[in-house]
């Protein structure tokens, strides 16, 4: 009996170490392969853009899903012979793709719908916006009694131990603190002293959208610097969160972008996909599905979302209601921001 127990124990201890067989994904030969985040992002891209694209062109669409950096790593190791044809990623991470020669220059002649989009969504010769959102203050009024109406309210002593914010990318709060002190994302050091005052107010830092939403749901982080899209998603789930349109400084805009991978053999199809994604009709559907701001200024925004943070319906709103960081400064400063943030706000 004892020897059998030993064998069983050894087998069970080593069981988790046995890897699953790696089966390469089989893809249809003529399919356009799109790289995008998983979950709701992929489902929405497929439902709103992919299906319409296939119906229009007859070209099937397949997806490579993963986190921002997983997909970047895969793109790097397959440079010159990409596994995907078209990539979705945030605008400052796109700068890393561009710096490594992973993107093909966009042919604007093949993107007639690009003429209808906000100037701010034309990010570079290589990548173009697909939708926008803001990082702003979001809170649960049932757990925070005083109204929060501006960024500077985060410094209230009554919010001690209640705030959660992203640690993977502290650029939003760093930029806001710098703006408060007369600086910006380039001379961000001006906001250092102001930021340090927030240290005791922070309950937790989150690394993923899911963590952010969990912190809000459980009440562990009832006041957050949060992605507007995630806040609207929580509202849909019945969590009563308030998304603040800050009165002092605007929300910090994030733009997700599309690009054609350098070396793709389906560059034309990828351009068609992007052009379709930029059309008024598809943009209208994207707003409804994602609760994100359209980049096409002619897209229809549902009445319930009009004027909400992160939803820009006109050229004027793009200018006035969101702060857009310089992509290059953001990509270059991010490592230094994270290091400073960890040393001064995260560490005990």
């Amino acid at each position: 009996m004892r020897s059998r127990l030993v064998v069983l124990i050894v087998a069970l201890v080593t069981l988790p170490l046995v890897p699953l067989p790696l089966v390469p994904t089989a893809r249809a030969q003529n399919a356009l392969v799109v790289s995008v985040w998983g979950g709701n992002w992929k489902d929405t891209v497929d439902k709103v853009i992919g299906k319409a694209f296939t119906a229009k062109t007859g070209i099937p669409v397949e997806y490579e899903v993963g986190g921002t950096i997983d997909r970047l790593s895969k793109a790097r190791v397959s440079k010159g012979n990409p596994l995907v044809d078209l990539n979705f990623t945030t605008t400052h991470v796109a700068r890393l793709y561009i710096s490594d020669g992973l993107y093909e220059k966009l042919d604007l002649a093949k993107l007639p719908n690009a003429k209808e989009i906000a100037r701010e969504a034309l990010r570079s010769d290589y990548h173009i916006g697909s939708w926008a959102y803001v990082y702003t203050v979001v809170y649960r009024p049932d757990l925070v009694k005083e109204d929060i109406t501006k960024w500077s309210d985060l410094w209230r002593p009554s919010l001690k131990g209640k705030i959660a914010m992203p640690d993977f990318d502290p650029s939003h709060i760093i930029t806001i603190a710098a703006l408060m002190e007369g600086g910006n994302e380039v001379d961000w050091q001006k906001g250092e002293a102001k930021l340090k005052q927030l240290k005791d107010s922070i309950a937790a830092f989150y690394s993923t959208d899911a963590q952010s939403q969990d912190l809000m749901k459980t009440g562990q982080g009832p006041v957050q610097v949060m992605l507007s899209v995630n806040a609207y998603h929580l509202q849909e789930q019945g969590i009563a969160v308030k998304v603040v349109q800050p009165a002092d400084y605007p929300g910090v805009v994030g733009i997700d972008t599309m690009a054609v991978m350098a070396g793709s053999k389906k560059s034309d199809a990828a351009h068609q996909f992007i052009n379709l994604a930029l059309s008024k009709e598809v943009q209208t559907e994207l707003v409804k599905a994602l609760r994100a701001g359209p980049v096409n200024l002619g897209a229809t925004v549902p009445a319930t979302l009009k004027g909400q943070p992160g939803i820009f319906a006109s050229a004027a709103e793009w200018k006035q209601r969101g702060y857009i960081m310089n992509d290059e400064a953001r990509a270059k400063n991010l490592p230094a921001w994270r290091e400073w943030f960890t040393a001064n706000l995260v560490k005990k």
Partner: protein
Amino acid sequence: MLATRDVKLALLPALVVLAVFAAALGSLFRWSFLEFVPGSLQTGGLTLANLRAVLAPQYLATIRDTVVLSALTTLLTLVAAYPVAYALARTPSRRVRSTILVLTLAPFFTGAIVRTYAWILVLGNTVITWPAPMLFTERGVLVGLVHFSMPTMILILAAALSHIDPVYERAATSLGASPARVFWRVTLPLSMPGIVSGGLIVFAWTLSAFPTPELLGGGKVKMIANVVKDLGLDSFNWPGAAAFAMLALALTLALLAAVGRLTAGRAS
């Protein structure tokens, strides 16, 4: 007896794995000496700047915190797991043994992430109101790590205890030793090989723990793996991440060698 040729053949798969692992480590080593260019994935020339950077106080503090948390986790896991392992190995009842085994193995089938999310609910003030904050503190992370390590420690200790012939304990008892004395003078020393191997395994894997401190630490408790991820995946500083990983690997190997050396005498 196996012939030398057979031994070589038997070792071949392990050597292939070792070669791949060595190549990956070699690549990591090379990356740790490449210059990081902020805002770019391209690297510059060879430099020692990454190694100098990871010797900054905040990174050394992470290594210190990781070692302390790992040592505490090992100790607490041992204390919590030993009685369960003893019951598993010594109970005459098949039903009790099956129940303990099922309860011990159940966590293996739920996955680290699910278990850790459950701890978020328990350690937060949602289910229990704790007298001191637990979630997003070292205390909370310690609880999660001990829970994560317990099943393995129980199984290793149970295997060691099941190898001890009860005749030794009966002999001690018949010579007048009290149950406590029997335990301290006979059972515990004879189970030392299990304690050492279980302790080393728990200590080693806690040194590289990632999901538990990531989720239960709320970004405030950072262990080595979390900082490597932060540097590599959030700051895009792959040379920095490689340098910190190499430093951590060197320290881990040195620590494990020291612990192994210290305990070798006791285990034999």
